[in-house]
């Protein structure tokens, strides 16, 4: 089942759910500034505050998607501004890799926003929020990921899978043969 099929759902009623992991010193404070400056922005983002982007684990992002997020924002201090001097540098490397990994496994990178938002960039935070919401609204709900567990409500039991006809269930196992010959070519070693 392709995402396209799902996103046919009427977008008017689709309100993206975005989970944001932000550092306490720059982005969270920047978001505070956006508030004190009364900058209106989409209400689709839920912020989780952490001391530093260095603390943000790739598992947070995975769990957010598992728990129904359609998009994720990771935001912290600009390079050289890190309250802890290097946390954001380490985060930049880990997420530089993880973003590629997610994309390779089929999570559209457009569902992820990484940004540097300083404590003085309230307006930039508003932009980051609005752009992300608009982009994810365009992509539609991430039900394919949210449903992965039901997908194998199949429970690896092909019979159940036949009934559920859910994506990824064992009957499609043969599917990748075709997919493979077509795309990945030779049988792997």
């Amino acid at each position, binding site marked *: 089942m392709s995402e396209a099929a799902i996103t046919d759902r009427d977008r008017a009623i689709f309100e993206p759910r975005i989970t944001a992991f932000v550092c306490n010193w720059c982005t969270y404070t920047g978001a505070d500034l956006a*508030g004190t400056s009364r900058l209106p922005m989409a209400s689709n983002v839920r912020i989780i505050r952490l001391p530093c982007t260095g603390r943000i684990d790739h598992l947070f992002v995975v769990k957010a998607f598992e728990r129904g997020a359609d998009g994720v924002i990771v935001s912290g201090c600009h390079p050289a501004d890190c309250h802890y001097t290097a946390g954001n540098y380490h985060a930049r490397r880990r997420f530089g890799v993880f973003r590629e990994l997610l994309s390779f496994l089929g999570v559209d990178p457009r569902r992820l926003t990484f940004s540097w938002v300083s404590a003085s960039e309230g307006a930039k935070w508003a932009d980051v929020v609005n752009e992300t919401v608009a982009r994810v609204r365009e992509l539609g709900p991430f039900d394919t990921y949210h449903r992965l567990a039901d997908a194998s409500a199949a429970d690896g039991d092909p019979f159940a899978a036949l009934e559920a006809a859910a994506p990824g269930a064992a009957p499609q196992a043969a599917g990748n043969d075709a997919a493979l010959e077509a795309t990945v070519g030779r049988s792997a070693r």
Partner: protein
Amino acid sequence: MSRIGVFICHCGENIARTVDCGAVADALRDHPGVTVATDYKYMCSDPGQQLIKKAIEDNALTGVVVCACSPHMHEKTFRRAAAQAGLNPFVVEMANIREHCSWIHDDREQATAKAIDTARTIVEKVKHNRPLQTIRIPVTRRALVIGGGIAGIQAALDIADGGHEVVLVEKDPSIGGHMSQLSETFPTLDCSQCILTPRMVEAYQHPRIKLYTWSEVEKVDGYIGNFSVTIRKKARSVDEDLCNGCGDCQAACPSRRIASEFDAGLSRRTAIYTPFPQAVPNIPVLDREHCTLFKGRRKGLAKDACGTCKETCLKGAIDYDGEDTFVTEEVGAIVVATGFQLYDIGREQPEGLKGYGEYGYGDVPDVIDGLQFERLASASGPAGGKMRRPSDGAEPKTVVFVKCVGSRDPEKGMSYCSKICCMYTAKHTMLYKHKVPDGRAVVFYMDIRAAGKGYDEFSRRAIEEDGAEYIRGRVSRIFRDGDKVKVWGYDTLSNRQVVVDADMVVLATAVRPQPGIAELAQKLSVSYDQDGFLNEAHPKLRPVETNTAGIYLAGACQAPRDIPESVAMAGATAAKVLGLFSADELERDPSVALVNERTCSGCFNCERVCPYGAIERRDVCDMEGHVCGHVAYVNPGVCQGCGTCVAVCPSKSVELAGFTDDQVYAEINALAGW
């Protein structure tokens, strides 16, 4: 089972205008683990806080969530209130429904929904908050100051005057540093030694300052409040207690041809020597490198080749057999004030620097650097303060000054500006013109950078009153031409070549950190930049602190600094140290990392990423007590709570108090199906 109280603040109309606070309270009342949920006009007001305290007492709450403004605004307020009601302050969290909600949304329905989500998220987090205790670390209220230049002396004096003991370590035989070599200082042209010497003596005689000269820091263990420093006292060969500084030994010493470091090589000294008459302490050291006796011993001669100083010394203070000794000092804070060196641009260049052979420095005796000029100009200098050039002692009638030699030159030298050269060159031209009124002072410059109180006026005075000739342009070549020194330069303003037949040339060479700075930085686990200057913790907000808590920076070890800046930094470090010493215990935020030693695999990713060197390796022993592995340990005194170690731990064996995996997981989980 959690018993959480949720308190929703209207913030007058600020929140209530767009968020239906009553609805939030109703929604949260049904949330698992919530015991009370109420809204109120101003939670931060006194009655508001009373309301929370009463709820805590009446319902034996295990956690509190205040839905109001940003935690940056009032977290402290509410944590204090909860503490007064007998609740651990760290089980109190704020849900930001003002800055992050009511102030940025107009749709009442959406805003209220978001406020409810936010509140639920924080409630779920608080279910996993653990009571935390403020970390207290005992503080040894003694300080170590490394470097006895003006910065080190000032820091030592300020700390000692503040009532705490200071250990001052200087690698040279005397304190005083570069400032003691200067003749006059800008922008006032007052005599350098006249203002410095009293400070040196004051430091020497201060009851709370323990001075180690001819000594170096060998090893540094421990952490803020609890450093243990091993100091190498280099063999002085002179008993500091017996010696009375009479100077007979120096008068008697047969080897008298050794280039004087103090006079920047422009004069000669003896093997046993005090670097300069006002040296503090006024106790000589025996330079074993050049001493005839020790040369002999190194050759393996059966009988000592000399012994004159020992014979001369009436106090019997000379000891040829003394070795380096080590002392350990316990201190709570360390001030690094190791200062600078001038870029030696001669032909021999270490560490892959190119140097400036074309300027003839080191080959042409009358081409000297700024420090040598200071000695020439100094009343206590080799020429007694008369303007005499090194080669033949003649009075130079034309002196060329070249600025930015090795500075602002990424190609061949340093990319940074050495900052002090513009001012001291202006000073040099003045000193010269005052001594040789009919002489020419020609200055080649790139820019004149004279920011600072009275600085621009000073350099203008050099040009307008003392008639220094400033030529904007670089010098391509300097070479000997008979008894002249030819200077080929280019005037970029009039766009023509300039050739000057000079009698002497003064090069304003770049300011560089002291040799061996990298080794010292490693001992202190302080980082340094590509040029070797030590890194401050934050370029704007923490300019005199380092990333290693308890270690501070003063003067030119951090970047090129002039005297007033160095003194100001020294004062700043003293203020930091005195602040640290204001109590026997150092209080720290308890949100620090903790390693689960049972599941730690000892891969030390945490150690690699920790910006503060807070990770230590601990042995794991088997039942027989043999070391069978290593695990990481986070020193709570050093940890700053960034949590970078947590994210790189593959087995999730590190937790960050206040932001544990449990807490974050619960927050994410709370957002499911919003």
